[in-house]
């Protein structure tokens, strides 16, 4: 009898463990919101929440693409500098005017150029990593350093203001039904990416390449192409982040635009439960991950904590989230 009961208890325990295993990020997420609500009652006000979403959109966009790269067993350390480069292209194009004061380059074209530049950097990363067979960490680090230095050189290290174009300003600052447009953009891309990752063959191959590159190759999967594609995806996402950022700041700063964003994005992906060793991960986790980071930033301001301590808090969040996700034997 007793044995049977303890067996039933075991079942219930297993079930709870199962929920924890699959949804630990969400559990942590709800917990964090609860704690924040108690610590700072203003936290739960609608305008504050919407503000958090707006502020996290840039890093969020990069995190979406970064998820693909990390699942495929790679990493991209060049996102920040690439954001600055693509942003610089965008600002320089949109501030060019004809003699009569009208924009010389249509806004849409400037944005496309920004996306194209960022995607090309992804392609460059991917090509070097796969063809020269170098570790992604080193390649993207090097490419990132070069990109930042080129921006500094061409802009002479300065900050360049963009022209005030209302349509452009709206991308980062507008709202639809009071929901921030940049967040809507990120959600839209996330939905497409989710389908890409879970429903298409490409998505499955991304997991396969990250899980066991040899087995993927022996199954006839074009491993190099898949990996290049993931770097192009994170490039495209960085271009999108650049567009949002430029629209919000209306300026590009050679030295600081996008600085540290790659680490924020990687943090979001890790907190979201995607494994750095590749082969495992979920987009929804990354979304929760970057929102958690946004909440942390927001709380630092609400509680009047020195911004110098934000690194401490974020580091602790990473350790906590990863510890929680570690499987017991």
């Amino acid at each position, binding site marked *: 009898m007793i*044995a049977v009961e303890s067996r039933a208890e075991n079942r219930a325990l297993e079930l709870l463990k*199962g929920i924890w295993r699959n949804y630990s990020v969400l559990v942590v997420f709800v917990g964090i919101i609860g704690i924040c609500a108690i610590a700072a009652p203003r936290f739960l006000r609608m305008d504050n929440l919407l503000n958090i979403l707006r502020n996290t959109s840039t890093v969020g966009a990069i995190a979406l693409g970064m998820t693909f790269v990390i699942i495929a067993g790679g990493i991209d350390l060049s996102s920040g500098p690439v954001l600055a480069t693509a942003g610089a292209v965008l600002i320089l194009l949109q501030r060019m005017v004809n003699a009569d004061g009208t924009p010389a380059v249509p806004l849409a074209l400037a944005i496309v150029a920004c996306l194209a530049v960022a995607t090309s950097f992804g392609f460059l990363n991917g090509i070097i990593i796969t063809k020269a067979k170098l570790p992604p960490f080193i390649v993207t680090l090097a490419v990132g350093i070069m990109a930042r230095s080129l921006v500094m050189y061409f802009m002479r290290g300065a900050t360049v203001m963009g022209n005030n174009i209302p349509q452009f300003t709206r991308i980062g600052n507008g709202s639809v039904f009071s929901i921030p447009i940049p967040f809507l953009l990120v959600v839209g891309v996330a939905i497409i990416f989710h389908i890409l990752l879970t429903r*298409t*063959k490409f998505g*499955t191959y991304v997991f*396969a390449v990250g899980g*066991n590159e040899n*087995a*993927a190759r*022996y199954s006839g999967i074009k491993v190099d192409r898949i990996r290049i594609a993931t770097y192009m995806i994170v490039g495209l996402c960085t271009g999108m982040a650049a567009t949002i950022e430029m629209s919000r700041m209306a300026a590009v700063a050679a030295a600081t635009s996008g600085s540290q964003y790659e680490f924020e994005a990687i943090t979001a992906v890790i907190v979201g439960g995607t494994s750095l060793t590749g082969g495992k991960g979920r987009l929804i986790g990354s979304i929760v991950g970057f929102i958690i980071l946004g909440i942390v930033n927001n709380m630092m301001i609400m509680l009047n904590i020195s911004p110098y301590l934000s690194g401490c808090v974020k580091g602790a969040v990473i350790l906590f989230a990863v510890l929680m996700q570690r499987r017991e034997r």
Partner: protein
Amino acid sequence: MSNAAVLQMKGICKSFFGVEVLHNVDFGVDKGEIMGLCGENGAGKSTLMKILSGIHAQDAGEVIFKGSVIRRNATPLEMQRVGVSMIHQELILLNELTIAQNIFLCREPRGAAGLINFNRMNEDAARILSKLGEKIDPKRKVRDLKIAQKQMVEIAKAIAFNVELLVMDEPTSALTGKETKILFDLISSLSAQGIAVVYISHRLKEIIDVCHKVTVLRDGHFVATKNVADVTAHEIATLMVGREVKESKASDFPGDPNAVVLEVRGVSDDLLKDVGFKVRRGEILGFSGLIGAGRTELMEVVFGIRKPRTGSVFIEGKPVTIRSAIDAIRVDLGFVTEDRKETGLVLCRDIVDNANYVSWLKNPGMFKGAKATMENTRRIIDRLAIRCSSPAQNVSNLSGGNQQKVALSKWLLSGAKVLVLDEPTRGVDVGARQEIYQIIRELAAEGVAIVIVSSDLPEILSICERVIVMHEGRITGTLNASELSEAKVMYYATDV
């Protein structure tokens, strides 16, 4: 209970994710006894032994080793210290280290100032390996070894230190007759020294040959422990599966001898010496030989993984250039590799993914097609009797034999014209093995040309219509099913 008992496991229960895989299992071994452990794929053999060696903790029941109760959460290192050593079914060597470093991992001989004494380590490693009849240089990296050599290193590692109970989980599944013989001599001499051995294998003949007793598990339940002298291999099989298992014998190829699908000519490289062969539509061709004979290497050349110095491949009479697996798949070749962990499976993904990679590649469109995929997967799970909690189960959580079935299913679902199977039933139980043979025969009947590389002679005898025997990179003989016998194959394989 005899007081010579080294190990007693009583009422062991274990569940994974709420599914119970061991129910109240009793198991015991005496000093110097060689105990066979049999059961179908997924019966719980490895799990029981992993509990013993400290990798899993049991949910209920107790383990008594040399008279004292073992702590429930004992670690593998603690178990090694008390004298339990285990050779795992899935090889767990570190690829980037040398053979000697692997053998002495964490227990390296130290010299002055506590530094590792590499000379002594390499010498000791060479000595242990030579006891196993291996002449490989212990300074070589494990990465470069073939799977059979890795298995021998794994065995060397297990016997390098004092053991009182040695668990061997399917040590021979990647070995050929010669190494198996050496291993058996070793087991017997260990037993004579009073060391107890638990021996897990799906080759029942080996159980009969080497063990004193055999314990059978079915579905996580204890079925029986018998003296080997009192049972036949056939009876063990019946106990395992719970029904009669019929064995079959192959006959000569009945089809059109001119309908050659795949022809390989003049392949030479460092190992292979001017090797060529043909296989016809619907034919089942076997490759036999000892480790290092070059069978796997030959197949790797055909599949574009290994670059030969010379050699050409023809598909249906037309020359083709195959530089990669992609090229091979394009001309409808399929290749089940011998090393499922390294090159066959993406362990961290589920059965659905692993079974469908190739068929997705072959079908047009960018979406996977959830319904068709699911139907395919369910069909193959049924057909190969893959034991799993659901098709969404991670392959890493399957038992070894069931992993092998998943590795096979990827290619069975691919619609290949020529299917190369390298050790297709490595670790698969007797019942499921017959199922796989049946599927292979059906595929052949549909016109698929099948090439089987196998170190298991009974397997070659029961399914191949023609057998090519290789020795040190050369083809030494070809035999039709009607003229086939173990003795003849061995004659050519050793090339005396």
